[in-house]
């Protein structure tokens, strides 16, 4: 991409501009979730908060891990650890496409010079029991974002519907700044006293985690942890809602969902280690989905996940 005057100089500048832009649109700028996840969608701010009727608007960076994508830092655009930028707004506003295009302009993409296209792409997450319709957004033939109207999450219909935007930050930034290899991308300002590239920060970790994911991780331990997470999720959800200590009604939906996130990541690691056969794969995905569904069910009973209409109807009756 031609470097214009408005072109960001670094990876972090793109993140900062997105943060500023979405903050200006009224989103709560959240911080990454403090667990290993495969994508920004797993953050409870998206999965759980897309359920129920309470309005919601959040934006955040989410470090994401895909153990099978590790390439020892050698591939120009494949990483086992990368960043997604995630925006979730409920109900989806009527001008969400325009808001999104504004965000591209904010990071220096001249909409009069590029070819931006919304190309059909239906989203489905078998592990989350979720699906939605939308597009992948193309900029000059490059997929730069995923744009989805959530229809179902954790087996629950989304009413109202949330609009979700996901930007693959590295790929987008490389395109905006015209960089061919991710490791060569300036992370901070190139004219800073101590300039750091993406490679300065992540080349070594990509190597270490690639080895870990493919060969190092103890599979028996991972299998055990998977089973533990599954059991713990069930156990936490089995508690009676009334907490004797505080005297409050406390459903442990989020702690249980943490276990679901764990199980999902453990499954991804096992998959990378190549110890899950094709037939078992489906079964594992089904087990994670079952957890996600239970957590969604539980969250729908909590204050944040309840149906305002159903509540008022109940109160009325």
């Amino acid at each position: 991409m031609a470097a214009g005057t408005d072109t960001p100089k670094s990876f972090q500048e793109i993140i900062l501009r997105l943060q500023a832009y979405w903050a200006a649109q009224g989103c709560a700028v959240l911080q990454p979730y403090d667990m290993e996840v495969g994508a920004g969608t797993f953050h409870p701010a998206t999965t759980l908060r897309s359920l129920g009727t309470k309005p919601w608007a959040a934006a955040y960076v989410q470090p994401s891990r895909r153990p099978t994508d590790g390439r020892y830092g050698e591939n120009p655009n494949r990483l086992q650890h990368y960043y997604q930028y995630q925006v979730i707004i409920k109900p989806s506003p009527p001008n969400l496409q325009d808001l999104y295009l504004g965000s591209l302009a904010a990071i220096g993409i001249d909409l009069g010079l590029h070819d931006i296209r919304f190309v059909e792409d239906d989203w489905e997450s078998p592990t989350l029991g979720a699906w939605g319709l939308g597009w992948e957004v193309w900029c000059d033939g490059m997929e730069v974002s995923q744009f989805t109207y959530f229809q179902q999450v954790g087996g629950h219909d989304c009413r109202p519907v949330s609009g979700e935007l996901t930007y693959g930050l590295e790929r987008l930034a490389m395109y905006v700044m015209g960089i061919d290899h991710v490791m060569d991308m300036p992370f901070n300002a190139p004219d800073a006293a101590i300039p750091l590239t993406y490679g300065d920060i992540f080349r070594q970790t990509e190597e270490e985690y690639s080895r870990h994911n493919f060969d190092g991780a103890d599979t028996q331990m991972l299998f055990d942890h998977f089973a533990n997470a599954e059991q713990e999720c069930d156990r936490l959800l089995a508690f009676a809602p009334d907490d004797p200590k505080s005297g409050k009604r406390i459903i442990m939906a989020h702690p249980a969902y943490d276990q679901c996130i764990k199980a999902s990541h453990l499954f991804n690691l096992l998959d990378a280690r190549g110890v899950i056969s094709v037939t078992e794969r489906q079964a594992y995905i089904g087990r994670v989905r079952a957890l996600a569904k239970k957590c969604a069910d539980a969250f729908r009973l909590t204050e944040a996940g309840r149906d305002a209409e159903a509540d008022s109807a109940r109160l009325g009756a």
Partner: protein
Amino acid sequence: MPDLLIELFSEEIPARMQGMAREALKKLVTDGLVEAGLTYASAGAFSTPRRLVLAVEGLTAESRPVREERKGPNTSAPPAAIEGFLRSTGLVLEQLERRADKKGEVFFAVIEKPGRKAPEIVAEVLDAAIRAFPWPKSMRWGNGTLRWVRPLQSILCLLTTEAGHEVVPLTVEGIHSGDTTEGHRFMGIGRFTVTGLDDYAAKLRRAKVMLDPAEREAAIWSGAQNLAFAAGMEVVPDPALLTEIAGLVEWPVPLMGRIAEGFLHLPPEVLQTSMKEHQKFFSVRNPKTARIEGFVTVANIETPDAGETILKGNQKVLAARLSDARFFWENDLRVAKAGMAEWLDGLASVTFHNRLGSQVERIERISARASEISGMLGTNATLAEAAAILAKVDLQSAMVGEFPELQGTMGAYYLQAAGFDRSVAYAARDHWSPKGPDDAVPSDEISVVVALAEKIDLLAGFWRIDEKPTGSKDPFALRRAALGIIRIILENGLRIPLLLMVTNAIESFFIAENRKHLPKLDARISDMKETLELYRRLLRADLGGVTVMAPGEMETRIQRARAIAGMLSLEQLMEANTKKTDLLAFFHDRLKVFLKDQGIRHDVIDACLSMPGNDDLTLLVKRATALAETLKTEDGANLIQGFKRANNILTQAEAKDGVEYSFGPDPKFAEGPEEAALFKALDAAEAKIGPAMAAEDFPAAMAAMAALRAPIDAFFEAVQINTDNPVIRRNRLNLLHRIRAVCSGVADLTRLEG
């Protein structure tokens, strides 16, 4: 008469759905208008990625009043019946009329519907159309409950007359109809008002939107060709891609680029598929080298740098994609040259169908069928078996994993790279064919054998588990497979006993079920690998290209097969028998449909199906064609009448007399020249028909029969069959029998209609 213009403006509609959406909108709205009593002169639907448009011209301004009378129950009917009638008519008792009827006094409801104004009807019809729209996939958005393909943003609905235009008021899910719209997302001019179709199309054009998808297609295609032509190249035609791209842009701007040197050695199909699937690029071919060397991408925007930035970006994405493709290609070639063992292993863990086993088991069966079919056709069984085993290994290659549509094509490349005979490689490519009614059938004899084997196994398998096509449901494309077999046989003029082919295939499933005690799958795969290795060595050109099976090998196999076949129980044999008869009938049904499309009447086919050897489709069609051609001639058509007359008289006489008149008639009892002439004509015809039938020259046989028409007509004209003289009567009935016998060689003419 007003013209109606409707625009449903939304976020981007998937390209693949726009065609059906145009048709559905047109049908729902025009049907609704007509049903409500309006008429119109013409209607046309258009679409762009962001709008679905319907223009109806010459609509009547209001519907005619309708008066409907409905007869109800007798006035003395039980109250429940009368109440039901009131409910169904929406009237109250006082409004019903009482009229005298044959069976007493009867209630009549007279329902008068006054004429309604067009706007009222349009609003109602459009509202219903939007709510009932048959999108293949639809969604909700925001707080709403309406379903549309993507969020619906505005509705334009106008009735235009010479006096001006009026908005048809309507509100759907909070969207109020109006007379405004907007143009191109990036090159537009904001919202604007329109007054009718012409004004709408003209203003859209100014706002950089081509409304008509056909116009966009034409613009894309001519633009792309011009770019290629200027560079001395040519665009590879791809009508489906053209339609798809026209559904992705409102203002097409074709741009051409070159493929980097490092990718030009990839097979053209790989370049084409990768560019088409991932990037929606047209391929551009250099006519001098016949290689794909460039691409045309179609942007949706005119830019100040004439698309330079866009082209550069696209080129970069393409380079990344083709790097992947090159990686797959090189990796696959390595596996292919190493003997493909890992692909065969992989196929064992791929389920073909949960009741029909893994891909490896299917391949085993196809290989067995290929061997049998080779025997029937006299082709090289060794080559055919090897080809069958290898025909689907490319399913495991990385390239086919990425681009399933390259199955077969990649197989041919990889098998050639691995040093296999060309015919084996071509079989991998062509055994999938014909993939549709217009696709060419394979003609290379090994490909023919494997294609037949592949399809008969598919059909027999689903017949075995009773998953036959029903009505419009044919999820495994079994009708296509049967038609494929029919076309392969007919277009190659194959003489093959279809019933035997069907029998072998069906019985193999029962045999396999009895083989539980045979070696485990792993052992069978390793057996298969050994066989392959054997073939490989045998087929190597540097070893002299010996293509025979090792001595004793064939016998061992036959013995094993016999031993296994002997285990079929009586019940299994009977079940297999039912299934194979049913499957053969399915083939005959498909054949009838196929031949009907070629103008051959179903009764002509039935007449030929009644003849022996009806599972030899080539023979069957030769008969049918000859008969159909003869029926087109005057002599032929009249011969059938004469034949039927002879047959009817004879059949009645035989029924009455209780005897069969099949004793040779004697010319010495002939009375008059017509009868004598018929004897001579029959002698002459028989002399020609015999050799013609022996040579399967059915047209000649039919011509000889048709020549009997005049003597037969003259005979019936001059002679009475049932005379008082019993000797002469018997002789004449025997003569009729001779007519029947002579005319029955090609088809059972009694089955012809009319």
